[in-house]
């Protein structure tokens, strides 16, 4: 019996069209647009100005607060301007625009391919190096890693859990990364274990990637304390709370942080980035992105520099198909629909999904038939039909009592609803309003 999380879950079609496509190094863009808000927390503050010359790996922005991250240039050239550009949210956000010249890297970066297994740094030094390299969670949420690796004093880390689940349909970036860089990932995991001072790590992989499970299990045998855990194929297996529940059987209590269960969860891409940062002095400026879609000529996995316009990667796959209806940054369950193809890639861009006209439109909304399928699907045990109805009628106090803040916005409810109701749209609205209410209440105290 494969392990899985205890409540709810759905089974979208996997559609892993780009599976086993080897990672291609994407071409360097002519102009790189590096957003300043690529992570959770305060946007980074630029430390370069118009006209400055930068190299690949030069720090161009420093953290804007405690929960923030540094940003490094992914290209070499001259800073053209610091202006705004519409990002995946549809709103103009500040970014550093760089005119690319050549591909000169910072001398400190070790560009050799040899595996460096030994790490003699202390845990504090490791965390500092990760912070300097601007590493954030590459699973999509982009939480600054150095903050996660320093749990609040009330909590003690007991194990590291690596999220190699990739439960979102269509995405294959993590899968391919494991097939091509298993050893480096293992070293990265060991470094993470050292950073939080634990001696046990679990790597959760969904069962639809048997070759990755086999390879990672073989490689893990050479490292102490790392166990590969195959997981049932179910969405949202990769959700942090669900993953902790599946692997170590502990459920994060409502309103509590995941660290309260003793688990430090990191994406497998983050583990790879940690290896590169600590062992090769390479800051985070490129990542693996899946570009896929049913009408796309060549679904592929790219190693792309941050700041590459999405358009360039789509063109490298054969160009935007004629019948394109929607372009999604990320996976189809939690990704963001993009307003145009000029949106630049950021640290959290795990995929670009081209949906054709047929798939792009939602179905016609009908009244709720109270079938309770949304209740059965919700992995947090909530009642989406009730929460969305309360949100429509602006009954936000009651929503707080019904635990709207526990919602992880996975979309399982809306995916299941036979009446095509926009459950998550309204739940999200309510969550935002209730969150604001709670913050106002706490500020008054």
């Amino acid at each position, binding site marked *: 019996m494969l392990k899985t999380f205890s409540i709810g879950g759905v089974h979208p079609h996997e559609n892993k069209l780009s599976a086993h496509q080897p990672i291609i190094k994407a071409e360097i863009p002519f102009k790189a647009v590096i957003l300043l808000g690529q992570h959770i927390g305060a946007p980074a503050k630029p430390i370069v100005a118009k006209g400055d010359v930068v190299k690949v790996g030069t720090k161009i922005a420093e953290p804007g607060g405690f929960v923030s991250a540094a940003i490094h240039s992914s290209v070499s050239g001259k800073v053209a301007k610091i202006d705004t550009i519409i990002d995946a*949210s*549809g709103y103009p956000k500040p970014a550093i625009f760089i005119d690319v010249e050549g591909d000169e890297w910072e001398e400190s970066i070790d560009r050799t391919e040899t595996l460096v297994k030994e790490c003699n740094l202390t845990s504090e030094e490791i965390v500092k190096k990760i912070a300097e390299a601007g590493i954030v969670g590459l699973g999509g949420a982009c939480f600054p890693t150095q903050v996660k690796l320093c749990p609040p004093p009330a909590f003690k880390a007991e194990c590291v859990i690596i999220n190699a689940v990739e439960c979102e349909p269509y995405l294959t970036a993590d899968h391919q990364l494991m097939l091509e860089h298993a050893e480096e990932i293992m070293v990265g995991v060991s470094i993470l274990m050292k950073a939080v001072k634990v001696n046990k790590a679990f790597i959760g992989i969904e069962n639809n990637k048997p070759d990755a499970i086999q390879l990672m299990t073989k490689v893990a045998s050479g490292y102490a304390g790392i166990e590969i855990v195959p997981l049932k194929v179910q969405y949202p297996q990769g959700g942090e709370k669900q993953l902790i529940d599946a692997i170590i059987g502990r459920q994060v209590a409502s309103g509590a942080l995941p660290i309260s269960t003793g688990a430090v969860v990191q994406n497998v891409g983050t583990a790879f980035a940690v290896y590169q940062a600590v062992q090769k002095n390479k800051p985070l400026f490129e990542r693996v992105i899946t570009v896929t879609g049913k009408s796309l000529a060549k679904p592929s996995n790219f190693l792309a520099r941050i700041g590459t316009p999405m358009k360039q990667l789509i063109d490298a796959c054969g160009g935007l198909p004629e019948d394109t209806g929607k372009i999604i940054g990320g996976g189809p369950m939690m990704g963001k629909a993009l307003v145009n193809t000029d949106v630049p890639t950021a640290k959290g861009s795990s995929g670009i999904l081209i949906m054709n006209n047929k798939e792009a439109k939602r179905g016609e909304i009908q009244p709720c038939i109270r079938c309770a399928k949304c209740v059965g699907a919700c992995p947090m045990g909530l009642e989406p039909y009730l929460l969305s109805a309360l949100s429509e009628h602006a009954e936000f106090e009651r929503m707080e009592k019904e635990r709207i803040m526990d919602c992880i916005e996975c979309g399982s409810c809306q995916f299941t609803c036979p009446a095509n109701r*926009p459950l998550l*749209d309204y739940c999200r*609205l309510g969550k935002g309003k209730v969150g604001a209410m709670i913050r106002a209440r706490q500020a008054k105290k």
Partner: protein
Amino acid sequence: MNVILIAVISLGAIALVSAAILYVASKKFAVYEDPRIAQVGAVLPQANCGGCGYPGCSGFADACVKAGSLEGKFCPVGGQPVMTKVAEILGLDAAATEPMVAVVRCNGTCANRPRTNSYDGAKSCAIAASLYGGETGCSFGCLGCGDCVSACQFDAIHMNPETGLPEVDEAKCTACGACAKACPKNIIEIRPQGKKSRRVYVQCVNKDKGGVARKACAAACIGCGKCVKVCPFEAITLENNLAYIDPNKCKSCRKCEEACPQNAIVALNFPPRKPKVEETEAATIVGAQTATPAKTEAPEVKA
């Protein structure tokens, strides 16, 4: 017969006892309420819309009596007539306030503001605004999903399907502010209705730089500042590339409306301007009459 008698007596007795209990309870548990509250409440419109800022008409009546002064209290539905009555009952002076009305500060019609995307989510402005700047290049403008229409309890605002923008029916609008609160983009403003319902305002809330704003919408305010220069009463301020007309200083001279190169300033309910052609014709005639054989003395007539 006996049965009927017994039934009548027993029921009558029950009724008497219940009445006595109720009487005693009404005296013993009575809550004293200032009788003026009920009197004020009776003259209020009973719309319970919350436009006054108090919970319902009874709440407003309560507040008026307890506060001791009518400063800052105004019933937008009842207006000045009702406030005068309230003042009479309480023996206070009614605060004289101007009638207000809701104003939609966006002219991004389908013609002016071309769509760049097609929104397919739930039809609610609050939801659309949470993650998107809208379907057009202007991320400040009206989203067109009608949250304001749903919020209005007086049937005073409706979406115009041709322009995609809400339109306020002045006659029905009570300036309760529900639409302004509902709009996530703060496009609707409650402004003074103006003498003879005439008012001048900037029909735009776009804070982008001029070039970006203009590209997104043909009627956007580009922050050029011509209106600021032209206003003789210093009623217009320019902040964040957006002009704003202070309703308290504006004297409705309409010079700014003429000056705006984008037609972003609108003057509502004014009579049509006299066409400039008449002036120039008059000048030509005058010029012709005074023209003497010396042609050079003919006054220059602006074409």
